[in-house]
């Protein structure tokens, strides 16, 4: 499809990027924490993708290439924001991470009743999940977004973030542990009543 677009069938570009609208928006929203800024940056991203389509070589997957453009776009917006005294740059450009000290022990429980996907109809639950992810430090938020939300594989995630596959796994493990710790108390309120068979649905789906 890319070859046809470059050959002049530019309208095909709409179809090409449709599957990437959501991952690009979510990536930018997680970086910028503001819907309007994320939407503007998403538009700029796709315009850049179109204008630079001839440079796409196919070394990486198209989706990885587009997300890396989105990420650069978002980081650019953050850099501009950081020059404004009223909006100091949060610790967004921190490096390393694997040596970071922290408590990566999960919350300990003696039983767990599944919170089914249907519970996501409740806005408070969606907000709690969203908040917990946004509250992760950037190095952990990035891997959660790419691996668990966008469902990219370890290699693609490592390429996009410019880190090793081992680092992706370590960060994802820590991030999931932190989310479990943060969320179990909240999630208990949405659990399936005891005796329900909801767990079958959960374990029927492989993470």
């Amino acid at each position: 499809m890319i070859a046809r677009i470059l050959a002049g069938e530019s309208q095909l570009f709409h179809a090409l990027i449709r599957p990437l609208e959501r991952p690009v928006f979510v990536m930018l929203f997680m970086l910028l924490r503001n819907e309007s800024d994320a939407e503007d940056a998403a538009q700029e991203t796709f315009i850049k993708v179109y204008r630079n389509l001839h440079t796409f070589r196919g070394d990486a997957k198209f989706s990885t290439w587009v997300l890396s453009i989105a990420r650069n776009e978002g980081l650019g917006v953050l850099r501009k924001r950081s020059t404004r005294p009223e909006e100091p740059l949060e610790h967004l450009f921190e490096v390393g991470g694997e040596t970071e000290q922290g408590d990566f022990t999960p919350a300990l429980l003696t039983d767990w009743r599944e919170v089914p996907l249907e519970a996501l109809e409740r806005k408070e639950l969606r907000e709690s999940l969203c908040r917990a992810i946004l509250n992760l430090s950037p190095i952990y938020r990035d891997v959660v977004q790419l691996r668990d939300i966008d469902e990219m594989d370890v290699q693609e995630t490592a390429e996009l973030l410019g880190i090793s596959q081992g680092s992706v796994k370590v960060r994802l493990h820590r991030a999931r542990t932190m989310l479990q710790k943060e969320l179990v108390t909240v999630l208990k309120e949405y659990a399936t009543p005891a005796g329900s068979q909801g767990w079958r649905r959960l374990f029927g789906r492989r993470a």
Partner: protein
Amino acid sequence: MKIDCKHVWGHISAYIDGDVDASLRVEIDRHLEHCEICSAVMDSTRNVVVLIADDRVFEIPAGFSERLHSRLDAVLQESSASS
């Protein structure tokens, strides 16, 4: 090899992703059979991973796609006019 709880916690994420080797998986499964704490930690972590992957957690603003494609149309037309 017999593994303890801390060892299991260190492999939860890899276990969920199916990224532990067969012998370790057997050990973890054996541990989970008799350890209610690790079973609950594993189940709750897996539950969190399933929930956050759902599209409803991060909502796209209404009209996002329409505005995007309308802007792209302008760019596409501009570039085809100039070529």
